[in-house]
Structures are given as structure tokens and as C-alpha cells.
């Protein structure tokens, strides 16, 4: 009900359409607890949850015409989850991934990008067998994408289409899967 009516009334900021602004204020009043709960469950922090909830409603206001009729709740939950995802991804990258020692990407490592020498190939067969074993021990959501990428040589595009996951998500999952595999290799897994 909300999305279609509001979307038809106005789309662009014009600073003066009181009817749509009033309806949006009602929408905000009705769903603020839901959105705030999602943001708090994702971040665990009240201040961050408030900021993300505010960003969620601002994004919702901007894209009101894309709100499916009768599905405002899941639509808002998705926007909130996206905002939380962006925040968590940034925080996680800063805190965890930048601290990782990336020197495991050496020439003798099959997961590196350098061209192999003949000696490297004979060594890498053994390592490839080890990686195959390790990939099968990964948990979802990394196991399937890593199997398809490292063992079946599928591209990110192909994986994204087959699994119906966004390209960026597949890219991120392969990247994290690679880090997990490198850690296990270094740890003698």
C-alpha cells in the first residue's frame, strides 16, 4: 500500500510535497522499531544501530517507488541488512584482513598468481592435492564457491550465474575462502 501510493505521488525531492512527506513520516513511525531491531542485531551497538536506521529510512525515501506493494517489511529489512553489511564489511576489513600476513602468496604457492617453473609444477601437484582436501573441509558459504573456482576453474561470473548470488558476494566469498585456505596451509592443515 505505502510504496505504490507514495511512489506515484512523488519521486524527486522538491521540498514541498506535504502529502508524501506526511505518509513517509507515518511509515517511519510504523516501522522504526523493526528497522532499529535489525540494525542492532547486526551491529550490537546502539549508536551504530541508530545511524544505520537513519540511513535505512533515507535510502527508503529515495527509492520509495521500488517498494513492492504489501511487502514494506521485508523491503525495509533488506535495506537495513545492506546498510549493516556495508558497515560490518568495512569494520571487518579494517580490523581483521589488513592485519593478516599476506606473504603466503609466494611463487611456490598454487594460490599465488606468478607463472610456475617446472620445479614449481612438480611441487604444486602435491600442494594441489592438499588444497583439494582442504577445500572440501571448508564450511558454507565458502565451500561451494571455492570448489567451483579453485577445483573446477569456473570464473566468478559463471559461479554468480549458477548459484544466483551477486558477483560482488561471490568475489568476497572466494577472497575469504582463499584466506582460510592459506591459514590452514600455513598451519600445516
Amino acid at each position: 500500500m505505502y510504496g505504490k501510493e507514495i511512489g506515484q505521488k512523488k519521486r524527486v525531492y522538491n521540498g514541498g510535497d506535504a502529502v508524501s512527506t506526511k505518509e513517509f513520516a507515518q511509515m517511519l513511525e510504523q516501522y522504526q522499531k523493526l528497522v532499529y531491531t535489525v540494525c542492532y542485531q547486526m551491529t550490537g551497538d546502539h549508536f551504530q544501530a541508530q545511524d544505520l536506521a537513519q540511513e535505512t529510512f533515507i535510502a527508503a525515501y529515495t527509492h520509495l517507488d521500488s517498494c513492492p506493494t504489501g511487502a514494506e517489511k521485508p523491503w525495509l529489512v533488506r535495506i537495513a541488512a545492506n546498510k549493516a553489511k556495508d558497515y560490518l564489511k568495512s569494520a571487518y576489513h579494517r580490523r581483521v584482513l589488513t592485519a593478516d600476513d599476506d606473504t603466503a602468496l609466494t611463487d611456490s604457492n598454487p594460490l599465488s598468481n606468478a607463472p610456475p617453473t617446472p620445479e614449481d609444477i612438480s611441487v604444486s601437484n602435491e600442494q594441489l592435492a592438499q588444497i583439494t582436501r582442504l577445500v572440501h573441509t571448508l564450511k558454507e558459504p565458502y565451500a561451494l564457491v571455492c570448489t567451483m573456482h579453485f577445483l573446477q576453474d569456473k570464473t566468478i561470473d559463471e559461479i554468480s550465474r549458477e548459484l544466483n548470488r551477486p558477483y560482488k558476494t561471490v568475489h568476497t566469498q572466494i577472497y575469504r575462502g582463499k584466506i582460510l585456505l592459506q591459514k590452514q596451509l600455513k598451519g600445516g592443515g
Partner: protein
Amino acid sequence: MEMFNNDGHLTEQALQSLNTGHLDELCRLEAAEHLSFCDECLLRYTAILEQGELITAPDTLKPKTLAELRRRSLRLFSNRYATAIAAAGLALVLWSGGVFGALIPDKTQPPPTPPSQQEQEPLFAEADKLVKTMNDHLNELLKLAHKTEQDNGNNQNNIYNRE
């Protein structure tokens, strides 16, 4: 605890743990990433939220959000109309100065004699008046935008000074 089952969807346990706040940072990130594209898990999570107790948002969420929307609307309005007023003012100044006439020469007529200094003065005075009017309008818009930003800044300071 398994976050995902073999078909790549979030387990019921994962969704319940997310709802009760028992997931670590990486698991919450993985859940958020999955919910950003999986409709099935999104509906399951929404249903769990509706069945449970929602957290009351701070009182300031609604007024802050509406104030931010007003601020962005005003900035968009002032950017758009300031540009239009500036363009119109420039066009008037150029027209008053005879630039457009000079650009389209009339070959059937002898070239016009340039206006004398005395003839030009009223034209320049008119152009000056138009530019001044345009400046006054722009200053009013900027004052209004500045005042709105100040009001929002004061509200924000009050909120974060509270415990």
C-alpha cells in the same frame, strides 16, 4: 553451530542466533551478506522478527531522520535553482550587453555603429541591477541552508551529550 546448510541457505539456528544477538562479527557479516540477496531467508528472518519482541528505537530517530531529509531537500533545491538563476542572470547580462546581437550579424544592413559611452551607461546600470537581485536571492537561500545546518548541528550535540 552451522550458519549455512548444504544448499547455501541460513540455518534456522543461525537466524534464531542472529535474532537473539548470539553471533560473532564474521557470522553477522555473513548473515547480512546472505540476506542482501536471498529472498527466501529474508522472509524467514522477517517472520522471526515479527514473532519476537522488537527493540524500541530512541526518540530522536524520527526527528533526526526527517531533519536530515529536509536538509537534503533544501540542498538539492538550492543547488538546482541557484544554477538556474545564475544561468538566467548571465544570459540577461550578455543580452543586455548586446553579445547575442553581435553573434548573429545581419548582412543586409550596414554594421551598426557601437553605442557611445553615454548610451551604454543605462544598459550597464540595468545589468548591475539584475546581478544585484540575483545575488540577493542567492544570499537568502544560502542563509536558509546555513540556518538549517546549524539547527541540525545543535540537535546532534544535545543528543550525543546525553548518557
